[in-house]
């Protein structure tokens, strides 16, 4: 994985010094909250419902055991013993004190981490495919390019006061594990007929109040021109994006209101001006960064390990975990292991400091000292020997992290919601906890198959409810927590925005309503169909009449 050279190290240290000065000026009263707010947000610091919250960047979700141990230390010292993985492959800590944040950042800098641009109206932490470098279906390692984008976007002097936040994701596969189509810019690495590498560029996707699927702006931007193309898109957005209404300020609205062809023409015109400039990424620099992502020293192994097959046969629980959480690796004898952070009844994405330290040890032993965070608030060990899966599973089970529910109904995304967030209208985590209890039966979860359930506590959609096969959106209805149900969304390569099925349900009735939807799916399902496919086949009508029978009576 990427390691800082002295330039990166100096930069991050200098950023800590700069922020220390800003905090001092805020505490001394030299700066008002209004002036401080954008500065602290650009360094990942929020003032939430109960306290400050610091969001720490994990660029493209890749980090090491040393970094994980530091995060555990931070969880103990500044949070109440927890860390919380987010949908941008980041981790956040509640309860830090403002005057301690500069020290916290200095501790992060010691392990080559920072909180730069994890919030604010700037280019956010760049995300990538969590299986990068391990999966067979990729064109190149997306993290190489995510790192190049990270450096270019870090404290970019021109794009620090954008109209709104700006999110970039990189993938290298036809399978979308990074929600590419719902980013301000989504990049998919491709090879052209000449065998050269470049990017298919999606622009104007996003969730929030007005969810939109991105549009392909360019089928193939050659790799050396990536930064000039990004700079052209950002400059056009910065100059023409709306500033009069924060709900209409994302680039998706600019694309929608201007029209794809006209905006594309503007971007292409700007790109022509800057394409042959110092923004070209030199081959040497690509090679330098690539060298950090060189494959780890894999052993030559047989594709089938006899002891692994025996263990699966002897131990059905292990077999279920393998079926649920383990996926194919491109090297014979290796596997990619998903570690679910959705144990029964606990807040999605939460991890204790002790678990962090244990996982750091396990990553060293079993996965070349490397950990990935996923946008679905889980973790990945990308390179585990098939022959060691059983030992790893046993060790994970001991620390409560062997839940085999990846992609199942209890593997929910949930935003912090009103338990923490100052913007939320309703709670999200407690609802996830109740659903997790309701669907505690793993046999039932496996029967239901892949079912992506996503919960947001407000219309900003941090819980990605629009792209849940089933989405739940918290609303405040006359002082009560209510939840709206959306059906049919997908954040994957079959991207779709879910439709609101009808009036919202109270917090007391929403779990029953969800169960009605799921049991109807079971009745209507053909063979082993996914929920999403059944919904697409039968449409919304049967679900509406199941959920709102009184309406049917009224109409009859």
């Amino acid at each position, binding site marked *: 994985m990427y390691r800082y*050279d002295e*330039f*990166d190290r*100096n*930069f991050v240290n*200098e*950023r800590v*010094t*700069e922020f220390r*000065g*800003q905090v001092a*000026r805020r505490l001394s009263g030299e700066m008002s909250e209004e*002036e401080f707010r*954008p*500065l602290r947000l650009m360094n990942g610091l929020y003032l939430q419902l109960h306290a400050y919250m610091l969001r720490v960047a994990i660029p493209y979700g890749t980090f090491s055991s040393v970094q994980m141990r530091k995060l555990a230390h931070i969880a103990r010292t500044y949070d109440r013993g927890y860390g919380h993985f987010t949908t941008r492959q980041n981790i956040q800590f509640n309860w830090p004190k403002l005057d301690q944040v500069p020290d916290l950042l200095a501790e992060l800098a010691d392990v080559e981490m920072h909180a730069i641009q994890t919030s604010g*109206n700037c280019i956010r932490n760049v995300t990538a495919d969590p299986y990068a470098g391990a999966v067979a279906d990729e064109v190149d390692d997306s993290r190489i390019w995510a790192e190049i984008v990270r*450096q*270019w976007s*870090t*404290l*970019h*002097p*021109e*794009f*620090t*006061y*954008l*109209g709104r936040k700006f999110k970039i994701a990189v993938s290298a596969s036809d399978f979308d594990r990074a929600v590419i189509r719902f980013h301000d810019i989504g990049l998919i690495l491709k090879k052209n007929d000449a065998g050269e590498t470049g990017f298919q560029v999606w622009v104007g996707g996003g969730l929030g109040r007005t969810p939109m699927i991105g549009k392909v702006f360019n089928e193939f931007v050659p790799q050396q021109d990536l930064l000039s193309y990004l700079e052209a898109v950002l*400059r056009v957005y*910065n*100059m023409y994006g709306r*500033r009069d209404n924060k709900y209409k300020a994302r680039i998706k609205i600019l694309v929608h209101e201007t029209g794809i062809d006209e905006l594309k023409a503007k971007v292409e015109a700007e790109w022509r*001006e800057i394409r042959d*400039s*110092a*923004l070209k*990424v*030199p081959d*040497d*620099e690509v090679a*330098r960064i690539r060298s950090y992502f060189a494959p780890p020293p894999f052993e030559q192994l047989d594709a089938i390990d006899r002891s692994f097959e025996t263990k699966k046969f002897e131990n059905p629980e292990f077999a279920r975990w393998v079926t649920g959480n383990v996926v194919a690796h491109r090297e014979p004898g290796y596997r990619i292991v998903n570690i679910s952070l959705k144990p029964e009844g606990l807040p999605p994405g939460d991890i204790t400091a002790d678990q962090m330290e244990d996982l750091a040890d396990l990553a060293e032993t079993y996965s070349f000292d490397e950990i990935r965070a996923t946008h679905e608030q889980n973790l990945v060990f990308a390179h585990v020997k098939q022959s060691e899966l059983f030992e790893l599973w046993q060790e994970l089970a001991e620390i409560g992290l062997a839940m085999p529910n990846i992609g199942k109904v209890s593997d929910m995304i949930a935003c912090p919601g009103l338990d923490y967030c100052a913007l939320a209208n309703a709670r999200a985590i407690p609802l996830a906890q109740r659903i997790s209890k309701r669907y505690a039966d793993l046999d039932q979860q496996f029967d239901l198959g892949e079912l992506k359930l996503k919960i947001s506590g407000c219309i900003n959609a941090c819980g990605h409810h629009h792209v849940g096969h089933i989405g739940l959106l918290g609303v405040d209805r006359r002082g009560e927590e209510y939840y709206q149900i959306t059906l049919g969304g997908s954040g994957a390569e079959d991207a779709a925005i879910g439709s609101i099925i009808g009036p919202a349900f109270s917090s007391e009735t929403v779990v029953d309503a969800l169960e009605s939807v799921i049991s109807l799916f079971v009745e209507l399902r053909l063979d082993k169909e996914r929920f999403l496919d059944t919904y697409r086949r039968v449409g919304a009508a049967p679900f509406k009449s199941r959920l709102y029978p009184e309406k049917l009576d009224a109409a009859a």
Partner: protein
Amino acid sequence: MPLLKDGKIVNDSWLYLDDSIALPKVGAIVVSLARWQRDRAALMARTDSVGVRLTADQSPEQIKEDLTELALVAIEFPAFTNGRGYSYARLLHRYGFTGEIRAVGNVLRDQYGNMKRCGFNALEVKSGETEAHWQATVSNFSAPYQVAADGAEPIMSLRQQRMAATGG
């Protein structure tokens, strides 16, 4: 309004001329884009310098052809969070404009560094603010990650130079 120019607080020798006021015979003046477009000939006939003040929704593309006639372009920041002006300054720089690029309106001290990097060389400061106030916010980054308008060598090229020097 006092100005911060090249790191020093100076008195502003330019007059912002309201659209309704007749052109003075002498003295450097800054006019609105509308005034410039309307009274272009009269403004160019004067001996003293003229500048144009752009609002946040007026792109410098609209004065691209006129830049050789202008000694100053002022870019308005209606709110310090409205960052359009940063791109406008980059465009002016790219068009080869060599006059003064001035940030006016709601500008924060902490934005000074980014503004300089984008090509601004003067900023309007609030009365009572001293050079020391502004110097206190100047961050000491040894090298930036990006190429911008200030000519600072970005980290990527510094790495290239180092690789060339060490032959590796």
